[in-house]
């Protein structure tokens, strides 16, 4: 095997990195499918409401985190500002939903 010493993107290092990333993305996809099956399965099994709802919401959040970090590449370098924006958005989103619920249900 020949070693390439200069770091253009044609060398083996980046090829390897791309392959690795694709592997992570396929694992992400498999996990997302499994989570979806669990969520639908739990609802179809007609378990207790107070038990099922928190679990399917947690499954959705985990699934979305996987999607953000592996499909949308937030695990890569140079995503500091995108992280601030998306987490900023998510915090305001949380407050918005909380406000609406409190307003209507109080």
């Amino acid at each position, binding site marked *: 095997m020949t070693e390439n010493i200069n770091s*253009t*993107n*044609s060398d083996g290092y*980046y090829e390897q990195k*791309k392959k690795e*990333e*694709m592997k992570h*993305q*396929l694992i992400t*996809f498999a996990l*997302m*499918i499994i989570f*979806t099956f669990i*969520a*639908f399965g739990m*609802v*179809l099994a007609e378990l207790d*409401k107070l038990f*099922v*709802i928190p679990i*399917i*919401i947690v*499954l*959705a959040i985990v*699934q*979305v985190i996987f*999607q*953000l970090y592996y*499909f*949308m590449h937030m695990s890569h370098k*140079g995503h500091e*500002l*995108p992280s601030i*924006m*998306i987490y*900023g*958005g*998510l915090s*305001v*989103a*949380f407050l*918005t*939903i*909380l*406000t*609406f*619920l409190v*307003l*209507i*249900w109080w």
Partner: protein
Amino acid sequence: MSNDTLNPKVMPEEPEKATLEGKNKFLGFWFFLGGETVLFASLFGTFLALRNSTNGGPSSQELFGLDLVFIMTMLLLTSSLTSVVAIYQMKKNNFAKMQAWLAITVILGFGFLSLEIYEFYEYITLEDFTFRSSAFGSAFYTLVGFHGGHVLFGLLWILTLMIRNAKRGLNLYNAPKFYVASLYWHFIDVVWVFIFTVVYLMGVI
């Protein structure tokens, strides 16, 4: 054309961020996604608050079936993966394969959209459940319809990019455009994950 700066023989490691314009697009798009998150949150908040206000009309338990939603979810999840593969091919500077994977993404997306239209059509004609039926109806159609509108926009966006660049091939000018469109597509999938959980699964329980 073969050797100008926007069209290098070997693609850099991150073609979407190789130019200043690409970097700006990348940042600007994430800013936009932060805003979109809040926009959808307000629709989710409205829906959650009003989902039991059926005004004597059909309730979510009577309306929703999970078969169609499950198929729609699988279509959209798979299309998210195929657009990831398209970007993988973009980084390998393989334009033809990227176009092919984007085409599969678009087909899956149209499959999703047709099922959604079919679902709405059934609700309106068979169940007499419309935008004006109840607060639940308005909140449901606004939230899910808004997401459907995003799907349609994303599909037209990707199709436009594919057609506009079909003869140009991949270069550093359009690589950021493809990249950003794929981010948008993933974001649509992210929103759908919450829709099928909060609207459909929690609506059936």
